[in-house]
């Protein structure tokens, strides 16, 4: 099965089948694709589970439909099956609660030399986050 690029907090290459309007992955590959795992109690990640009322809706044959998973999680998604690329929104509830509570959301990004960093590394310092660009 050829790979598709799945974009969430990071970009992962995952074996996937393209149909007319979505991408399908084996249930066991769902954690690799989206970071969520299908368990009896629903779609789970770390200590959080999202109940899934109609499990059949997630499946096409024996494969999981990434578009249906996005709907079940309440996350907007853009899936281009022909291009074998899909992007899934980050946690909208998390953003809204950050805008309200003013607790900065954690994030991880690489520096210019490819080393991974987490915002928490600078805990204990006052930080001026500057989003900028060359354009």
């Amino acid at each position, binding site marked *: 099965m050829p790979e598709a690029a799945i974009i969430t907090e990071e970009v992962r290459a995952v074996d996937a089948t393209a149909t007319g309007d979505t991408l399908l992955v084996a249930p066991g590959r769902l954690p690799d694709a989206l970071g969520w795992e299908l368990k009896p109690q629903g779609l789970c990640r770390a200590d959080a589970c999202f109940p899934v009322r109609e499990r059949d809706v997630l499946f096409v044959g024996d494969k999981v439909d990434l578009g249906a998973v996005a709907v079940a999680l309440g996350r907007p998604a853009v899936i281009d099956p022909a291009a074998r690329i899909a992007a899934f929104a980050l946690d909208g509830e998390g953003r809204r609660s950050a805008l309200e509570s003013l607790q900065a959301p954690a994030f991880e990004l690489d520096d210019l030399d490819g080393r991974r960093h987490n915002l928490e590394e600078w805990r204990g310092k006052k930080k001026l986050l500057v*989003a900028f660009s060359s354009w």
Partner: protein
Amino acid sequence: MHDELADAGFTVLGVALDDSSDAVRPWVDNISFPVLLDPNHLVTELFAISNVPTVIWIDEDDRIVRPNGVAFGTDMFKDFTGAEAEPHLNAVRRWVRDGELPLTADDARGRVGDLSPNEILARLHFRVAAQARHQGDEGVARRHFETAVELAPHDWTIRRAAMPLMGDDPFGQKFFDMYTEWQQAGSPYHGLGPSEAL
């Protein structure tokens, strides 16, 4: 600013909304603060950022004490934007040295409007386009960049960021077209204006 205040427990943390380190390096030559690369614009979704430069003050406990604001490091763009660098830099100095905050937590709350569903979708199309471009699929990239721009025509992190990735000059006519449309739309921005809360 970073070097001046580094021994007072302060750091600038740059996040470059660019697709490669090579695009950023000429801009950060000789700087001593960390710069992170955000080709998929994750921070614009996490913090509801719609333009650059946007600054966010984050305290020792990772609390946002001054949310998204327009600010410049120098007066290079002052004539164009009307934003002076110095009032913001002075406010940062007072915060770092004296703990003085330009607005209360209650004032800071809710000063940044949430992203609309279309602004979220625009970010997703932008990421799909960037990935397609990396895979050498220029046609797919263009289609998704164009959809992203249709969904968020006044978002600089979408429309202007897409210009160089589509082979357009981000300082050329397309920039001025966008600027005019943005002004006609009331200069929408997610956060504080250049002279607010200083």
